[in-house]
C-alpha cells in the first residue's frame, strides 16, 4: 500500500501532446479511477505509472520514491490488462507464480502465496488448466490473482471488465470492490464506463484531451461537476443542460430557462455570491433527470412547480425515463415507476432546485 504522486506529468509523441500537465495525489488505500472518452489519455497515463512508457516531463513518485527512471519490474506495481494477458503456454498456477519466480522467491513460499491468492479468488479448482480452457470471467480472476500474489504497492487495472458481458461485469465489479475493502490496497483503475467509476472509486479523475477536467470524490464529481463535459459524461441519462438567463427581482435571483416564448422563470433559492455577478448574462442550467419530477426535496423551499409536455415515456422497471418538453427545450427526467402520464399530455411536475448547477455560457465552467 502506498501513496502515489503525479506531478506536472507530460507525455508527447513527437509533436503531439497526449498528456498535458497532469497533477494527481493519491493517498495510501485510495481507489483512483481514471475515466474519460477514448483518446483522452487515461491508458497512456496508466502506462506511465507502470513504467511501460517514458515520461516526457514531470515526475511520478510512489511513496516518495521517484520512479521515472525505474523499470516496471522495479516499481513494485502489478497490472491487470484488458485482455488479461495470461501466458498461453503456462497453467493457471504457473501464470500466477511467474512474477514470484522472476523475483527468485523460494518454491515453498511461492506455492503458499499462489494457494492463498487462489483461495481468495475462488479459482483453486482451475490451477492445472491452461488459459485457453477458461471462460472470460475465470481468466479475469486469474489475471487478478497474478497481480494479488505480488502484494505490490499499487495495483493498476486497465479496463479489466470491458471484455465481459453485462451481467458478469456487474458481478466482477462488486468482487473488485470487496477486494479493495478487504485488502485496503492502493488502486489505479482505468475505464470509459462512468458507472464503474462512480461505484468503485474513492477518487475520480475525469479526463478529456489529455487534461484532467476534474479530480474529486464521486459525490463531488456527480453533484458539483466542474464543467459541462464532466456534467454530461458522468451520470446516465446525462445531466440536462438548458440555456438560461439570470435576472434579479428585488432580492431574489430569477432563472429564465428554455427558449422563446415558452421559457420558464423560476425564483432561485439562496445562491453563492458568485452567481450574482451573472445577472443579466446567459448561463447554462444543469439539472439531473432525477431532479425533475420529484415528490419532495431534501432542502425545504427548493421545490418549484413547472409545466411540461410529455413526449416519450420509457418504463425501465424500477423507474420511468421520460422525455419532456420544458420551457421549449427537450429534457430527460427520471420519474417514479408508477407515474400515470402518457405522451402528448400536459402536466405539472416538481423540480428540485437544490440540485441545480449553473455553468457559464461561454467557458462552460461551473459557477455554482
Amino acid at each position, binding site marked *: 500500500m502506498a501513496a502515489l504522486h503525479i506531478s506536472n506529468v507530460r507525455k508527447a509523441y513527437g509533436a503531439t501532446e497526449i498528456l498535458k500537465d497532469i497533477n494527481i495525489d493519491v493517498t495510501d488505500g485510495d481507489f483512483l479511477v481514471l475515466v474519460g472518452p477514448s483518446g483522452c489519455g487515461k491508458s497512456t497515463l496508466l502506462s506511465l505509472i*507502470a513504467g*511501460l512508457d517514458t515520461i516526457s516531463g514531470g515526475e511520478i513518485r510512489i511513496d516518495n520514491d521517484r520512479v521515472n527512471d525505474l*523499470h*516496471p*519490474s522495479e516499481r513494485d*506495481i*502489478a*497490472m491487470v*490488462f*484488458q*485482455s488479461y*494477458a495470461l*501466458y*498461453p*503456454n503456462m497453467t493457471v498456477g504457473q501464470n500466477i507464480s*511467474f*512474477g514470484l519466480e*522472476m*523475483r527468485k522467491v523460494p518454491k515453498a513460499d511461492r506455492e503458499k502465496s499462489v494457494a492463498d491468492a487462489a483461495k481468495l479468488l475462488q479459482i483453486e479448482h482451475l490451477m492445472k488448466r491452461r488459459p485457453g480452457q477458461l471462460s472470460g470471467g475465470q481468466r479475469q480472476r486469474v489475471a487478478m490473482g*497474478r497481480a494479488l500474489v*505480488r502484494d505490490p504497492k499499487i495495483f493498476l487495472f486497465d479496463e479489466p471488465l470491458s471484455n465481459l458481458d453485462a451481467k458478469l461485469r456487474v458481478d466482477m465489479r462488486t468482487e473488485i470492490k470487496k477486494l479493495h475493502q478487504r485488502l485496503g490496497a492502493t488502486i489505479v483503475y482505468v475505464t470509459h464506463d462512468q458507472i464503474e467509476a462512480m461505484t468503485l472509486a474513492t477518487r475520480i479523475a475525469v479526463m478529456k484531451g489529455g487534461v484532467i477536467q476534474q479530480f474529486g470524490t464521486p459525490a463531488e464529481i456527480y453533484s458539483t461537476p466542474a464543467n459541462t463535459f464532466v456534467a454530461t459524461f458522468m451520470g446516465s441519462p446525462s445531466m440536462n443542460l438548458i440555456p438560461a438567463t439570470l435576472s434579479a427581482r428585488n432580492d431574489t435571483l430569477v432563472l429564465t430557462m428554455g427558449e422563446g416564448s415558452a421559457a420558464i422563470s423560476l425564483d432561485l433559492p439562496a445562491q453563492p455570491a458568485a452567481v450574482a455577478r451573472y445577472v443579466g448574462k446567459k448561463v447554462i442550467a444543469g439539472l439531473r433527470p432525477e431532479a425533475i419530477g420529484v415528490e419532495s426535496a431534501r432542502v425545504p423551499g427548493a421545490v418549484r412547480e413547472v409545466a411540461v409536455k410529455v413526449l416519450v415515456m420509457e418504463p425501465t422497471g424500477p423507474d420511468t425515463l421520460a422525455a419532456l418538453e420544458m420551457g421549449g427545450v427537450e429534457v430527460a427526467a427520471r420519474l417514479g415507476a408508477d407515474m400515470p402520464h402518457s405522451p402528448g399530455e400536459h402536466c405539472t411536475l416538481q423540480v428540485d432546485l437544490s440540485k441545480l448547477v449553473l455553468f457559464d455560457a461561454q467557458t462552460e465552467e461551473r459557477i455554482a
Partner: protein
Amino acid sequence: MLKKGWDSPQMVMGKHNYVSRGVIYGLLAIFAVVYLVPLAVMMLTSFKPLSEVYSGNILALPRAWTLEPWFKAWGEACVGLDCSGVKGFFWNSTRMVVSAVAISTFLGALNGYVLTKWRFKGDNILFGLVLFGCFIPFQIVLIPMATFLGKIGLAQSITGLVFVHVVYGLCFTTLYFRNFYMAFPDELVKAAMIDGARFFRIFLRILLPCSGAIITVTVIWQFTNIWNDFLFGASFTTGSTAPITVALNNIVNTSTGVREYNVQMAAAVITALPTLLVYVIGGRYFVRGMMAGSVKG
C-alpha cells in the same frame, strides 16, 4: 483448407449439374496424371535392370524388379573420379542442412522478436534492408563470396557452405518470425515485464513456447531450400565436400560409356526423398511457408 459451408460460385449460382462436374473431375484427373508422370517415371526406371531400360519405355512396369540400381547409386556410382556412390554426399547435405537450418531459424526468431516487441526508430527501414536480400539473384554475390571464403580458409568446405546458407537464409527466417510475432499480443510482453522478466527471459519463457507453428513452417521452408540448393553447392565446394545435388548433377552429366539411366534415376529419387518426405508429412506447413514468403503482410 476447405471452409465449412463454403460454396463454389457454381453452387452459389445453382448451376451445378453432372455434366459440368464430370468435365471438372475429368480435367483435374488428366492434370493430376501429367503431374505425377515424372515421379512415376523416376521410380519405375530406378527399379529396372538396364536391359529393360533400353528395351522398354519410360512408363512400362519393370518385369524384373531389382534394387540393384539403388545399391549402385548409393555406394558405387561415379561422381567425378570418386566411385563410391552418393552416400557420402547425402551425409554432406544432411550435416549442412541441420546446422544451417538450426542457426538461421534461431537467429530469425530473435530478429523477429526484436523487430516487433522492441521497436525503435528506423526499425522498419532496417527490416526492409534485410528483406531485400531475399530477392537478389545469387549470381551477384558468387564472386566476392568465393574470394571471401578463400581468404578465411573456408573454401571448399561444408562449414563454408553452412555459413553461406545461414547468411542468405536470414532474410526469409526474419520475415517469417517478424510477421508471426506481429500478431502476438503486445500485452503479454508488457505483463511479463511487470512480472520481472527481461529481454531474454521474455523470449525464452513466453514467446518461443508459443511459436511452434512458425518454427515448423520456417524449418520446413529452410530445409527444403537448403537441401535443394545447387548454385551455392556448385560454386563453393568440389569433390568430397559437395552436397548431394551437385553429386547428382555430376552423375547425370558425365557420360562415360553406357548411360545407366536406372542408376541416375535412383540417385535422383534419393536426392528428392528427404524433401518429399518433409512435404508429405508437413504439407500444410509447407504451403503456409510458401504463402508467407510470397504474399504481403
